[in-house]
Every structure is written in C-alpha cells, then in structure tokens.
C-alpha cells in the first residue's frame, strides 16, 4: 500500500505538485490523468524519489520512503517510461538483469527470472535474450522495458506514459498484457497517462490532476456519475459519459439469469468479458433485441437485452 500525504513540489514560483494526498491499495492499479504540465510525472517521480519533495511524505507499506538512500529505494520499485529507455549497448537479457545484478542476485536466478518474464510477455527467450534493443520493434522494446522493471520482483511498479509511443492496436494489446501481468504478479501499479480511455480501461481508481492539484481520486464509474467539479466532467468527457459508463461493466456482470423455457439460443452470442458498450454496439448493428452471454466453452450463462443495457447507461 502506498500512502501519499500532502506531497508538494515547488519550482520557484510554480507549484508543480500542490499538497496531494492519496492512498493506493495493494494489488490495485491507480491511474493519474491530467493535461500536460499538470504535475503527473512530478508526482510519480516523487514516489521513488527521483525528485525530492519540497513537502509532505510517501509511506510504502507503512514505512517512510525518506528513511533510506534513494537508490536503494528505487531498486525495490519498478520504473517504466515512455520510449522505454533501454540500454542500447546491452542485450535484452542484460537489460532485464540490471536491477537483480545491482542487488547481487545469483546468475542462475537472474537467468531463470529473465526467461520467466520474457515468456510472460510473449517473447521467446531463445530468440530474444541475445538481441540488442535496436533489433526489436517498438512494441517489443516496450515489453522488454516492462520486463526490466519487473525483474527484481518489485511490489510497486511506476509507469510514466508507458504506451505513449505505441500505435493504437499494439497499445491495446500492451494494456491487456499489463492487466494480465498485474494479476499474475500481484503488483501495485501507479500509471500516468493523458489518454482518458486508457485511464478508464486500466484504473481501479483514477486520479485527475490539474495545475498541480488533485481534483478527484475515485473509481472510474464515480468519476463519470459524480464528477467533483466541471473540470473533471469535461476531462472525463461529459458528451460520452453514458457510453463510458457502459464500457466499465462487462456482459458477465450485467447478464440477466436465463428463465425457464428460454434456450439461450439467440443469434448473437457474446463472451462474459465483453463490455456492455461492445454488446450494445453489436446489437444495434445487427438490429437485434437480445444476446446470449456464454462462457469460454460456449455454454449459455445468461442474456442481455437492449433495454437492460440502456438501464445501466444512467447513474444508479
């Protein structure tokens, strides 16, 4: 758990970060969004003390991060940046082994961990271990960057616009991978982005920043249904708030039970993981009224109707 208390950074007259307090639960993803210059990166970099705060403090699992040398703290916290920052003169395996080597792990353990991470990120260790960063595609470089940050099994991962340089399709894939990784390793993630869709997709909680201040920090659906002020409403896109709300619920969560006599044999079958937004779009496109929600094996679990979906597009 990360507790941020009154964290402040002042550069001369500018308040880059102005008395921000927030709590990030263990095993959750907190996403920080905001316009350019709103202080997102500064806030993030104060968590691992790449930037020393002017005031306030950060507690990591109850311990003040100021109580140990910065470089030691940073070896326990993963860090991923836009444009990956891989070492161009080192192979993929050497890049990934950086922090374990700083921590003097045994070579065998480093090798095993490197292979495990490459596999988790769908890069064949036999093919990629010995390659140099310039021999990889942008998406592969980004994955190696994530693997490198996770190498020493950090409990916390900080990410500053990690997918900013990727094209939309690869970016979506990278987001899915991140969610998988997060579930697999139980990492607590703090991610900065200025892509509000990404924030809603990934965040258990989303922090909205403006001019150094934290405007609101809550679950995505709360940001949509009860924005703290007009600026948050504008940033979360009031024109699309109904659709955004639908995108936050999955078909599995919203499915109505199959009543006796219904076969569940609608023409349209959707997986439990589809969002209501996707299901509605499909129904409208096919001119249909209802869809069957099926599990991975195709067995029907419930149904969804247009009316039932629309009922969920309004704040409860």
């Amino acid at each position, binding site marked *: 758990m990360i507790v941020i208390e009154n964290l402040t950074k002042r550069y001369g007259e500018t308040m880059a970060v102005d008395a921000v307090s927030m709590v990030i639960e263990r095993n959750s993803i907190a996403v920080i969004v905001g316009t350019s210059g709103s202080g997102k990166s500064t806030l993030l970099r104060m968590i691992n003390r*790449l930037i020393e705060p002017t005031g306030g403090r950060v507690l990591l699992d109850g311990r003040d991060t100021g109580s140990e040398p910065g*470089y030691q703290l940073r070896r326990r916290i993963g*860090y991923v940046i836009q*444009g990956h920052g891989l070492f*161009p*003169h080192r192979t993929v395996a050497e890049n990934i082994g950086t922090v374990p080597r*700083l921590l003097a792990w045994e070579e065998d353990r480093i090798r095993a961990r490197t292979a495990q991470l490459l596999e988790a990120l769908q890069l064949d260790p036999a093919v990629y271990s010995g390659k140099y960063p310039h021999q990889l595609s942008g998406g592969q470089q980004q994955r190696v960057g994530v693997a490198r940050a996770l190498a020493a099994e950090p409990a916390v991962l900080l990410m500053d616009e990690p997918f900013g340089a990727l094209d939309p399709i690869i970016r979506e894939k990278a987001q899915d991978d991140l969610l998988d990784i997060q579930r697999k390793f139980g990492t607590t993630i703090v991610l900065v982005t200025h892509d509000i869709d990404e924030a809603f997709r990934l965040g258990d909680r989303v922090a909205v920043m403006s001019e150094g201040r934290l405007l609101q920090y809550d679950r995505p659906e709360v940001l949509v249904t009860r924005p703290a002020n007009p600026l948050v409403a504008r940033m979360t896109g009031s024109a699309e708030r109904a659709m955004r709300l639908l995108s936050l619920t999955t078909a599995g969560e919203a499915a109505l039970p199959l009543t006796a006599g219904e076969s569940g044999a609608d023409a349209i079958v959707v997986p439990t993981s589809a969002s209501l937004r996707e299901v509605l779009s499909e129904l409208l496109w096919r001119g249909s009224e209802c869809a069957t929600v099926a599990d991975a094996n195709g067995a029907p679990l419930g149904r969804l109707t247009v009316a039932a979906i629309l009922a969920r597009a309004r704040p409860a």
Partner: protein
Amino acid sequence: MPRPATLLRLAALGLLLAFLLVPQRFAPLFAPLAAGGAPPIYDQGNLWMLALSHLATVLAACLGSIVIAVALGILVTRAGGQEFLPLSRAVVSFGQTFPPVAVLALAVPLVGFGEKPTLIALFLYGLLPIFENTVVGLRTCPATVLDAASGMGMSARQKLVSVELPLAMPLILEGIRLSLVINIGTATLGSTVAAKGLGEVIIAGLLSNNTAFVLQGGLATGLMAVLLYDAVAALERRLCRNARID
C-alpha cells in the same frame, strides 16, 4: 578469403616492416634522389630502433592525454563540475593552439634535452580532441536512458561506469584516434631537441640536402600514422558494434 581492405592493411604493414628492418633492399628505389654519391638510405642510425622509440614517445604522451582529458571531461559533465567547463576548455585549447615548437623551446631550459620536452609538447597537443569528444559523448547520452538508469537504482558512479562511458566510448575513441595520428606527425619535431625518433632522418636529410632521407623519414612516419589510425578505427568498430542509439 580476406576482404580487400584487410589485404591492403597487411600490405601496408608489410611494407613498413620491410623498410624499417632491411632498408638497404630499398636502395635502388631511392638512389635517383640521393645526389652526388650521397648514401641513398639513412645510415646514421638504426631505422627500426628509431621507429620504435618514435612510437613509444607518442603512445606514452597519448596515454597521459587520455587520462587527463577523459578525467576532465567527466568532471565538467557532472552536476557539480559544470562551472569548470569554460576554464578546462580554455586550458585544453591553449594546449592545442600554442605551437609545439614553442613548447619545445620553452620546455628545454626546464627539463633539458631529450624525450621529456617532446612528451610535454605531445601531451598538451593531444588533449583537445579527446577532451572535446569526451564532453560531447557524455552530454549526448539519451535522457531517457539516463532517467531509466537512475530509476532502476544505479548510483551516480554505477551510471557513469556502466551506462555513460560505454555510450560515449565511440566518440572518445575517435578523439584518441585523432590525437594519436596528429602526434605521430608532430613527434618528428622532437628530433630538434634530441629525442630519438624518425624526425632524425628528416633533419639529417635537410642538413645534408639529401631528399632521399627526407622522403624516407616522411614515408615511414606517414605509413605508421595510417596504420595506427586504421587499428584504432577497427577497435572502435569492434567495441561499438552494438552501442547503436536509435
């Protein structure tokens, strides 16, 4: 089957070694230049020994330049050392612009004749390219790479040794190469203050009006410079094959 460049290299090396070890074999070649029965091949000393001490002087001076210039380059690119940049640059540029002949003339009264004044002159003359290239190399390390290095918990020292210097290495080596090559030529001046070197051959030729000697000293020095240039370039390519920054 070796590549043509390799063959050319070997040929140049073979030619130089042959000339230095058995110069008399080349007598017919130089005879037309030695007027009036003068000896066609330098006969006042052993060419091989002269070449070796020439090379030793240049390498020793260069080693000194590398240590000082790289250390200065590192110092002025650290957060606390930036204020020393203008001063360091002035000192190092002065070393390059002050003519080596003048350095020799000033150094002889202080340290006497022989190798020492030459070493001082070459050392000063060789600082600038190494220093400037070190500074540029360290300054142009990509900011994201340095940020990642700090973010992963490298100390300032670890960052310098395992990231900044390796990334700056191609440029530093280029500076060293430049400095070496310039000094192979410049070292011939050392013979005016009695340092052992190939300059002796040239001076002897000038004194006795023997063009053959002048040409021999010049060619041997030139070949040596070319070969050294090539060797460092090969080392550069080898070390830096992968340190490509996209």
